[in-house]
């Protein structure tokens, strides 16, 4: 698996030993079965619930779960590209996003000799205001988006070198 942020996006790729058609179907129709559980991955946290795509253009990606306040439905986003078995894209809004703040997740399924290369790109952070109050992983990426290439250029050498000649103590 390879991963890495680039400018305003995070991109992660993995090789899966199933044909593209299967990969696409499993991704979109068995989401509940593979999507991780727990507060890090679901709004439901550890509570029982489901997370599913409505597998069609315009369909929703939503969570449904029980909470103390009753049954909750949280729509994460809607499908903007439905092109089985090669491409899927959907909007992604965290609970704490303001109206108008939206990111997009694009998923590509590319056939390989052994199966499928799946690439997820989470992008569009430029719509998120830089001072987003949420202590949420996504807000940082939003901020990076606003600063664009300048920021990427700054971070890479800092991360590569760490404290060094540029930061004399």
């Amino acid at each position, binding site marked *: *698996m390879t*991963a*890495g*942020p680039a400018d305003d996006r*995070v991109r*992660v*790729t*993995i*090789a*899966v*030993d*199933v*044909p593209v058609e*299967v*990969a696409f179907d*499993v*991704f979109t129709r*068995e989401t509940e*079965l*593979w*999507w*991780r559980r727990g507060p*890090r*991955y679901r709004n439901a946290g550890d509570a029982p619930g489901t997370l599913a795509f409505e597998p069609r253009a315009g369909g929703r990606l939503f969570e449904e779960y029980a909470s103390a306040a009753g049954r909750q439905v949280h729509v994460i986003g809607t499908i903007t590209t439905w092109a089985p078995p090669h491409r899927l894209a959907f909007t992604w809004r965290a609970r704490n996003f303001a109206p108008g703040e939206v990111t997009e997740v694009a998923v590509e399924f590319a056939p390989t*000799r*052994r*199966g*499928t290369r*799946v690439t*997820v790109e*989470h992008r569009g952070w430029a719509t998120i205001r*830089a*001072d987003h*109050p949420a*202590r949420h*992983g*996504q*807000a*940082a*990426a939003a*901020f*990076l988006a606003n*600063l664009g290439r*300048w920021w990427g250029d*700054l*971070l890479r*050498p*800092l*991360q590569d070198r*760490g*404290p060094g000649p*540029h*930061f*004399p103590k």
Partner: protein
Amino acid sequence: MTTLDDTLAALADPTRRAVIDTLRRGPRRAGELAAHLGVSAPALSRHLRVLRRAGVVTDDAVADDARVRVYRLEPQPFADVRGWLDEVEAFWVDQLAAFKAHAERTAAPAPHRAAPRRRPRGGRA
């Protein structure tokens, strides 16, 4: 003690970003920064104060003149923001690993295609 919010607020201003961009190339005196960026000394002073409070830059006196301050970048605030972005990445790394495990456990493997071997030479379109 600084926080990510301080860092983000400090960097929300284009002049302050220009200051950082300049300091990437090495420590500078305040006067040099003002001249380089074309801003007045009082204006620069205000920006530097914000950056200092956010922990983005630090300043030291030069050895032979305590009145002259040399500014340099502090790497840690950037590492913090970078770490935040890494969480988004880690989220998808985890999800795709789970997806792969599930797909390969439950689905038939991809048929190994008898891909036509490309001949070293003599192939004709």
